[in-house]
């Protein structure tokens, strides 16, 4: 019997992501047919202090062996160090803050999604290949936003037409769009998660500025695209996964997810699904109580990932291919179509700092 604690966001504004991770995760558990895995799920309400409490509860009262589920970097930073310090395993299905990839890496911490910078780096690489020479970049003024612009700049070779930090939670982008229009840029890169991205794209589309837009998958994923509508059509975004990725695991996942929940899976659902499968693959080889063996089994990552090949780098973050994809409309549904790899077998920039 293995006990898994999942802390994720199930209420409030950001609940969609947490629900997808949970659904993907539970789907994999169900498909595995194992009934010796007990999953305790709690709602963190997207509040760091609540997440910390819940982590305490999982460790102290529920006595879980493995934890997972956190969506947001700030919550991850609050929970993961102390959980791993107490000897528990943590498998991150989404957040990958740089602090935990470099100096702060930990042998019991595995990230199954990406290091935060990855998708932005891929966006920079894509911009090069698309021949953009002068990009206007913007992101909210908080650590993930700062990482995003840094990540993009790390790979983008052209010049910057402008660089703006917007307010977190901002909903009106008229001023920024005016600056983009006046900047002489030939393309725009933005990282604006959630509602901010929806607002930006709608307003951008309505403004008459028609420079090409690049961004990470977060603003163009399945859960959100329907709300953006036509304004997102044709936008290129970067992701390590897409529903038309050509491998058998993925095809089966997409089909079974749709059958189970009546909606298309999102990036987050795929990450939840992969996380659970990684866990199951390790459990098949070793018991959690044998920490070293279990860790090695995780590290080996011998499971069928929805994104095809999957392996961990020395810092337990994925080394994977990140793709460019394009927003299209299939019938009534907005979704993404794969264009091609933007960065192949890409590791993160912090791995070298990890002494492990």
């Amino acid at each position: 019997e293995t006990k898994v604690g999942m802390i994720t966001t199930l209420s409030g504004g950001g609940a969609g992501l947490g629900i997808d991770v949970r659904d993907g995760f539970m789907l994999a558990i169900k498909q595995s047919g194992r009934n010796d895995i007990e999953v305790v799920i709690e709602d963190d309400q997207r509040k760091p202090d609540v997440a910390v409490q819940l982590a305490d509860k999982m460790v102290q009262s529920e006595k879980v062996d493995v934890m997972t589920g956190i969506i947001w970097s700030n919550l991850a930073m609050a929970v993961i160090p102390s959980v791993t310090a107490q000897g528990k395993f943590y498998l991150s299905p989404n957040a990958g803050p740089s602090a935990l990839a470099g100096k702060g890496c930990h042998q019991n911490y595995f990230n199954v999604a990406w290091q935060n910078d990855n998708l932005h780096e891929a966006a920079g690489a894509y911009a090069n290949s698309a021949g953009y020479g002068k990009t206007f970049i913007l992101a909210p003024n908080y650590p993930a936003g700062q990482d995003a612009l840094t990540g993009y700049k790390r790979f983008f070779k052209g010049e910057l037409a402008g660089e703006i930090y917007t307010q977190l939670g901002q909903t009106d982008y008229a001023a920024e769009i005016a600056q983009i229009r006046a900047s002489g840029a030939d393309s725009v890169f933005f990282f604006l998660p959630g509602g901010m991205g929806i607002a930006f794209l709608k307003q951008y589309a309505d403004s008459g500025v028609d420079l090409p837009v690049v961004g990470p998958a977060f603003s163009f994923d399945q859960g959100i695209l329907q709300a953006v509508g036509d304004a997102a059509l044709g936008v290129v975004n970067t992701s390590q996964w897409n529903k038309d990725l050509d491998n058998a695991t993925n095809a089966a996942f997409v089909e079974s997810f749709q059958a189970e929940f009546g909606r298309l899976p999102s990036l987050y659902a795929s990450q939840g699904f992969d996380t659970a499968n990684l866990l199951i693959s390790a459990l098949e080889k070793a018991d959690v109580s044998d920490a070293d063996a279990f860790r090695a089994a995780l590290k080996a990552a011998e499971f069928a990932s929805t994104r095809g090949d999957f392996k961990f780098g020395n810092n337990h973050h994925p080394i994977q291919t990140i793709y460019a994809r394009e927003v299209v409309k299939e019938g009534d549904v907005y979704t993404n179509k794969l264009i091609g790899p933007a960065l192949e077998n890409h590791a993160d920039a912090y791995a070298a700092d990890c002494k492990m």
Partner: protein
Amino acid sequence: MMQERYLNATIFAILVVLPVWAVWTDEPFTITLMTRAAIFALAAVGLNIALGLGGLVSFGHAVFFGLGGYAMGILAYHAQTYTPLLEAPLLIEGTKSMPVIWLVAILVSTLAALLIGVLSLRTGGVYFIMITLAFGQMFYYFAISWSAYGGEDGLSIYVRNGFPGLNTLDPIQFYGICLAILSLALFVAHRLAKSPFGLALGAVRQVPQRVETVGLNGIRLKLVAFVISGAITGLSGALFADLNRFVSPTMFSWQLSGEIMVFIIIGGVGRLFGPVAGALIFVGLEHWLGGLSDYWHVYLGLLLLLIVLFGRGGIIGMIAGRERSDV
């Protein structure tokens, strides 16, 4: 109707007995919950001095909570990374000692309360509510973008700070510290309410013009109340940060200011044990309802509504009668 003093004693007994029972039955998480409630109660005891005694509806008390939290976060962060907090003009080192952190937390929130108070007390009523809210938002946005200390990610401290002679990592011992401080604060609040200062403050809340005509400075009375209030809430912030071994800008958020206020309203405004009752109930509800359904906020909302609509004077008022009695 139960007399308020017996009710208070009952509440206090819960604070003492429940954690002991939790240790007995090996339910460490119950202790964590109780610690959370005790710390929130402390924050609300602080606010209650401004709100209950002085009638100052501060919608920005999270400022002090957050400052206390960051006082702990920053000092411990520098201690844990062995970097000095300040080199010139004088060297200031970080620390992992709770008493020192508390002092700093109190000092910083006192200064902030002084500043905010001087500016905000020029206004009154709803404007006061809103200007304190504005200060809260300023601190919140500042903390989010202050990347030196983690910005929105906040700061994690890997090991709980120490208190001479105690093992703070043991939940019950840390709870003991929090309970002791809460009790002390309650005692202070009780004495304060009865003191000449408290009498004058109560009069300022009810009839400001009268206080002036007996030659007392109403604004200054309110300012001092606000500062004391901020200092206590600041101290609670430091404890909260230590409970979670983590600080983040959410400690400054208006939702948190609102929650501190909600504790008081649930418990009973201006009642000595109102904040304690309110915090216990709120934390309890949050915990029990959270397990019921994804949509548990609906139930929480309904319960709160019932309390306002039918429980005039908060829980304490419902049980011990509406009139504030002299305990």
